[in-house]
């Protein structure tokens, strides 16, 4: 969705503009927030953060702007900033920093562990490419089940499959993934 499209729609109906913007970018914003908060937040916290981000965008975006490009960049920036803030407040509220958060803060703070970060990124890329090699629907099921933590019932609903079939495919696909990752030197 471009800035112009959003502004034109907003002039006709702000509510419709909000609906359209949300529909276009909710998966993207959710992915950003989930990626940042996965280890420290409940699903409710994540939903809360996503809705905070959209409220910020609805409120803050200048509807008189003549920006003609995709709003994705702006939305991504607001989402990341909000997600990082939420990460801080959640870890502070929980009274501890998890290993991940330490790692995260270290990464952001000093820049000294660039090599380690590069290794993590390398491993991440391999993992993602190996999951994608599983093909559909197994790759989606793996992401949904082991990364997004969705139950087999929820996945079944999203993919119009039976929960038992999801469970079976997930188990087999995970086994296959582990083997393929082991061959690449990564132990899951």
């Amino acid at each position: 969705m471009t800035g112009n499209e959003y502004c034109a729609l907003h002039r006709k109906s702000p509510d419709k503009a909000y609906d359209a913007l949300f529909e276009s970018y909710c998966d993207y914003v959710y992915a950003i927030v989930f990626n940042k908060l996965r280890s420290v937040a409940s699903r409710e916290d994540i939903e809360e953060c996503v809705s905070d981000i959209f409220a910020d965008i609805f409120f803050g975006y200048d509807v008189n702007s003549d920006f003609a490009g995709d709003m994705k960049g702006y939305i991504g920036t607001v989402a990341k900033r909000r997600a990082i803030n939420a990460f801080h407040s959640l870890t502070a509220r929980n009274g501890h920093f998890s290993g991940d958060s330490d790692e995260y803060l270290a990464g952001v703070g000093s820049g000294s562990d660039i090599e380690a970060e590069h290794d993590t990124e390398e491993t991440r890329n391999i993992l993602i490419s190996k999951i994608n090699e599983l093909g559909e629907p197994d790759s989606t099921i793996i992401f949904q089940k082991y990364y997004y933590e969705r139950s087999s019932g929820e996945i079944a609903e999203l993919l119009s499959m039976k929960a038992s079939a999801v469970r079976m495919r997930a188990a087999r696909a995970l086994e296959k993934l582990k083997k393929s990752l082991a061959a690449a030197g990564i132990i899951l």
Partner: protein
Amino acid sequence: MNENREFDMLENADDKNVELLANVPVLTRKEKERMLKMSKSKLDKMNRESNTEEQVSGVEQYKRPKWYAFASIAACIVLVGGIVGTAFLMHRNGQAPDIDPMSEVTEPSTESSTEVADFNKNGNERHFEEIEELFSKVNEFTFMFSGGGVEVDEGNNIHYDFKGENDETKDVRYVLVTDERFSTIEEVKEYIKQYIADPMFTSEYNSFFVDSWSPAVFKEFDGKLYFLEKDDAEKKAYKIKCGSQLTEEDLAVFLNLDSDSSLSGVEDEKLSFSIPAKIDDSFCRISGILVHEENRNKLSEYSIEFYPNGESADAHPYSVRAILDNITEFDAISSGAGVYGDTSSIKEINIDDITYRYYRVTDDRFSSLSEVKSYLRESFTDSFLSQNDYLWDGYSKFAEFEGVLYFNEAQRGGRYTFTGEPSVISETDTEVTIGVDSTLPGGEVESLEIICVLEDDKWKVDSINTVANTNAEPGVDYVSATNDALHTFFELENVVFGSALEVDGNDKVTVNDSEYARVTSDRFSTVDEITGYIREKCCDKMLDRYLDTDSGAGARFIEREGKLYAKIIPTDDRLVDGAVSNYTRLDETDNSFTIRVIPPHRDTYEIYVRLDEGEWKLSGTTL
């Protein structure tokens, strides 16, 4: 929180991988709706806080849509309008206003005016957006209860034996609901109650969850939710458009009509509103009340006032939608479904060993028989009402006991269910004919012509006639033939045995101890004309019935000195009601069929119809 540590390495991914993860379908419709709703409510809060700051700084931050601009102006004049309006009403009622308008206007109630003024600054827009959202929900519910707008699994259905009026059983097909919004009846109710306050929910929506004269729209079987899906839901469900859904052209019409929006009341408690709107293609005003419950405003009640079609400059403009609504209301009143009453307050009367139960009417519209008549006379001509006098004559629908209005508790389905777009077939300064389709209780569609006449500066329904069904399949058009036959049958019954013809009770003659009153109706002036009409419409045994010299027209009508007289008969002797909604057609052949009529309080009877020299004629009845 995360239990699958193996996938932690995907966290804090770069933009490219986040985009890839964003392509994984993970959010259900329900989750999306929940988050969007939360976002909007957070936005409302931010707007409220920001508006408070604006008042201090005096900076306007965002643009208002045009509609809201004049909405706000209107809100400013609400208080004054209220007082002037009251004075105007008092004046109309023939009482001189006992106030000095100027002093009232210049010294208004400080409390109320402050509230109104604060709204303008603090968020009329928000409330009007809320109202628009609420009416989009009302549309959603209307569509749902018309049989559409719910996700279902067509292949998974259950047949249910619905026991309708007269204990007739109908096979009704329910389909399994797969909609994410709800999976139980309770959840459907909760879904609606998010937007509709309790009294309105009970009066408007609760009946859709129970079997009454029509089957419930939702049902649970084996703990699963099922829905009564209907193919014509889209056609049947009307849509209310307001706010941003109105086009520039619509707004221009409303400006012409001097129709503004207004809002008054106490924020976060109760707000009254009045807004311009369109229902299908008809311009109207919707007035109603929002109440604040569970942290949001809900619709508590609303009423619709239609503007006339066309230009407001017309001397006597009419609204097709208002006319159809009046008929629907009449239908609801005459069927019993649309009369509010206290079912615990019952009167029983016994006639011919049949017990009739009447319940006390608690309807705001009328509290006596004369008020019922006056109410209906606003929208229907005397001629139409005399055709439908079963409402108050004989074994009537309405009755008064000791000065209190009661209604016959038996309910039956409505006669008219309008479908499709109505059209104006012809119009003059004093008469308009509207064409519209209506679905019969059995599901067939009939085409109607509604004739309205201008009477006392009001457009009133004078007659509703079935016309030949031009969309019918080739072959015999039984639907039209049945309707024509029923119409003729009731007309003849009422001419020969009832009170269809107007008489002058002061011009009477007595013959063989029987009293006859002079017929003043223009339709017939001689006995020959009546019998000629009967011969035109009937054959076989039906001719015997109506031309019988002991009981039929031969006994009912006489001529004296060139004038037509009708024997005066007690109304209780009438044999049939003026209309029925429940009937079936049997034994169809190319040249005959039978109509089985199932009246509310009498035994079922049949009417035989036969093709005679190319015309369908009544050929007999079991009565």
